[in-house]
């Protein structure tokens, strides 16, 4: 049940992000939407890797190596999510800096200001 909720929220968040990315006219709002999209995707990844009542995949007193596979949450999706978060951060930072540069050059943050290149 928990997994389903996480997945649902993840999908909702991604779609919200996508919708925002395509409808907001302000570059910063678009970037925030982009972050929402990213976060949604991360939640989906986590949701898929989750095992009901599973524990963290760290061998200690609570978790013996024998039979661990049954008890732990799959570590790989979590690892993937961590990587994806880092990459998403980098892209967001770069986007923000470009938005600033565009604003400096064109004195506007409207998406209408970034359509010099076309056709």
């Amino acid at each position, binding site marked *: 049940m928990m997994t389903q909720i996480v997945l649902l929220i993840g999908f909702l968040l*991604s779609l919200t992000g*996508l919708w925002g*990315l*395509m*409808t907001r006219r302000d*570059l910063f709002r*678009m970037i925030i939407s*982009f972050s929402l*999209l*990213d976060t*949604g*995707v991360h939640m*989906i*990844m986590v949701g*898929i*890797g989750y095992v009901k009542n599973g524990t963290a995949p760290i061998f200690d007193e609570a978790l013996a190596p024998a039979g661990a596979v049954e008890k732990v949450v799959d570590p*790989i*999706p979590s690892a*993937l999510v961590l*990587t*994806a978060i880092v*990459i998403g951060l*980098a*892209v967001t930072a*770069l*986007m923000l800096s*470009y*938005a600033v*540069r*565009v604003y400096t*050059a*064109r004195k506007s943050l409207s*998406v*209408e200001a*970034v*359509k*010099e*290149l*076309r*056709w």
Partner: protein
Amino acid sequence: MVSPMYLIAVLLGAAFLHPLFERAGRSLAKSVVLLVLVFIAVLPVSWLADLTWRGMVPVVFQTAGFQAPVSISLRVGVEEAVFLIMINAAALFGGIYLMLRKSPKWEGKVQVLFLTMLLGVNGLVLTRDLFNMFVFLEISSISLYALLAFTRSSDAYEAGFKYMVAGGIASALFLIGVIYLYRFTGTLNLDVMIAAGGGPGGKAGLTALFLLAAAVLIELKPFPANGWGADAYQAADPGISAMLSAVSATGIFFVFYKITPLLGAEILRMAAISGGITFAFSQLLAMKQVSVRRMLGYSSIGQIGLLTAVAALAPMLTPAFSQAAGGSSLPGGLVAGSGFLGGGVFPLLVLLAGNHLFSKAGLFWMSGITGSVDTGGLPERASLRRSPAAAGLQGLLTAALAGFPPFPAFWAKWLLIMMLVSTGSYFLSAVILLGSLIEAWYLFRWFLNCVKKPQDSGNVHDEEIPDDFAAMEMDQEMSQELRPDLKSGGVPVSGWGFITLFAPLMHGLILAAAGTVLAFMFFAGTPGFALLLPLAALALFTLLDSVRVPFKLQVFLGIAVTAAYGLMLLPGLVGIRLVFGLIFIAGSAVQMVPLVNRKGRHPGLMGMLTALVFSLGNLLFFRTSLEFFFSWELMTVTSFFLVSRGNKASGAALRYLVFSLGGAFMILAGLALSSSGMNGGITAVLMGLGFLVKMGALGLHIWLPGSYAETDDDLSTFFSSVLSKAGLFMLFMTAGLLAQASFASVLGWIGVLTAFAGAFLALFKEDIKYTLAYSSMGQVGYMLLSFALMSQLGWMNSLYLAVTHLLFKGMMFAAIAGVIYRTKTRMMYQMGGLISRMPISFFTVLIGIIALSGVPPLVGFGAKWMLYTALIEKGWYLQAGIAMFASGVAFLYLFRLIHVIFLGQLKDEHREVKEAPLWFLVPQFVGIIGIMLFSMFPDIILKPLQTAVAPFFSGDIFWEGYTVISTLGYWNGNVVMYVTMGVFLVPLAWLLTVQRRHTQKVGQFNIVYAAERPYRPETTHFGYNFFSPYRKALGFLLQPAAARFWYWVGSIAEVAGASIRKLYSGNVQTYSLWIVLYVSIFLLLLQGGV
């Protein structure tokens, strides 16, 4: 084998340590970067050596001491090695390009980004882990986003922002796809997934795979979800655009290639359709572009689309490769699972990808070096014409990208069309050929705009009558004042040196070398590799040009090698091939003589010319269709470069190229159909049309007048008297196909109408070269008509016309070239009375027009006699009537030719004109001697021609001494000559002796004598609009219906391009919408089971 980890470690290490190196010294840092680039370019070469010569098997390297699926694995096989060699070579030269450039400087930060971008792409090619693929994709993408902004223009930031939004959506899709795949298969390792029998089944599995595929496809910029890609190409620095196209796009394409085994038939089919659509629409879009880099960008997008389509079709094409192995059309090394790069579709992909990567990067660099921003061309002071090396290089790269031989794309195009047609993919083949044609159109349009001369408007297809009062010149002066780039004070670019051109030059050399190697592979069975002689000639003369051997010497050498080639080749030929061999080789050698008269340097001219003659010669002894097509295309491209040298020829050259290439593609389609066993009507129509284009048959002729007339005066003759016969020759060679399909009567009608139209159009031309051009068109019409008769006399006459046309048109063009050389004008009404100044040229033209018009006693009479006899024997009475009428029209323009130029009043400015230089006279003497000989003794030529057609037709005609006897009558050329000469000489003698007493010498301006007031304006000259009464009566026939039709065809393409362009509003949200729609429609079609 050296571990690929070194590749990644070195790139990463160099990128991280770069600031330290930079602290020690800028040059040190740059040297380290250069060393790293060399290392990563050489390492894959060592892998390939290990994998091929040393016989190692592909290795999967594990990382971090674990085995897959726990660790990430990197695979080094032939595929990875070959792609990395190409990508890293382009990166090496890309780095050198940025380094050698003076401004903007290659800063340290940019060098780091360059290295990380390469790290990403190399990783993408090597990795077998899906998530790792995502990481490398992001590394290369983020580096690219940053590199885009390296020019710091607001456009660059805009493009970078758009790119990031699109890349972000693609990443999201990729991640969701990967995580679901992991969920379904329990692994991220590609090999494990493939070993388990491809991707997961079921609709959910299909959707997961779809998300992965869609993400990769979006990164490959499919139509219409690719506006951001075009923006990036346009805004980036050319050095970065080159890397975007050559390195990044090729790397991501390899990812797609890698995951194809996983995708399954449905997704692959959709990907193939998407790739085909992208290819076609990108070409339409590129055609309308004003920005050079955006145009090249669309071209890149299109080429990657084509690659995607081919890779997606691999399962379908692979069996075709195996089947074709049985036939002769495929060299052994390309059979699936053997030889060259493992055979099958992969070598095809390598050829396509490599050709695109090297040529496109080269062209991006060229646009940066020359500062070409606008497809409309360059300012005069920076024209490429000023630097033969740069012009040649851009020509080479353009020809490579357009797929001319010997470049890799030529072989790829051949293989691809052969394979597609053999699997029945006719529609896709047509789309690919059409797209390639459009691509050649806009690429060469750019090239021509860069090299054209300042007086060339780029749109000259017909004569231009100058204004009476030189008003134009004043306008030009004024516009020069207004345009600072044209001012004489501006600093002209003196040309680009070896260092500046280094990077594109290297790519040009790589392409040429690869093409030559491929030619050796494909023609492995050919004795002596004579097919490569044109290329050898081109290389030889390019070498001579580069060491500045004087042009006159080059011409003599050209004549010598042509003669040697003829001596080597001609003895081995018999029959019809020998006849055309003499026309092509001997005819060309003689007509090279006037070139000796040229002064100064003419880089590339002799190389192209001898290559043209050799490729014409090679047509004579082709055995396979590939050998034929190779020589045919080589002939097209070399002759195109010759036309483009003309003063105002850029428009005509472009038309010539597009029509020739269109014809060549029809021939290719015909050959492909025929090799897959379809020898029916459609094959004959396609091939016939292809040859008719080259002959300039009515309706397909609109390229002809401009290219014949606007070519340099001493080169026109090659086109008219030699090259126009290539199409005829091929008609003879494929006559079986055409006759069997009963197209003979259609061909006959085309021939007679061409003859009529040519003569009629020639009638009203003021520009002498256009008169001769249309005249040639008409003459070729007669040859076609005679050929179409498919009878002994018809064929003999066709060959006879081909030979005699060479003689009289060759010598007339030489004479006229001499006249133009002396009088400096091409307008007939600006000449007159030249008989006294240029008597030899007059005599040549006199003999020429008598021979051409078909009056006794010269060769033309024999031709007409044979033609009418054969037409009447065949029962083609109406055609005979039209042909006769056309001859009458021809006589009118010929009369005008000699009357207006040589008779009448001598112009003031021509009073001191001398006879043409000796070099112009040599071909004239040869022509006159030939015509006289053949007129007196027709059996010298007719008997061999009879033997030549003997294998095809039994004899209807007989000989008695000098007399030919047909079923309808007889002709004795010897007697006709004596009688006519008698009829001519007796009155002449009478006039000169008896009548001389009554004559009186008068001055030129004696009005009683002249009946003319030789004042300006010139256009009141009697020679102007000479046949105005006929024009009034028949002018309605002059409607340029064909030109209008083709203009309409061109407009449709342009309008299509212009309308599709509107999709790319420039708004990043619209771009996102296209991406979402692309993905949704893709998914819908997939779920719908299409």
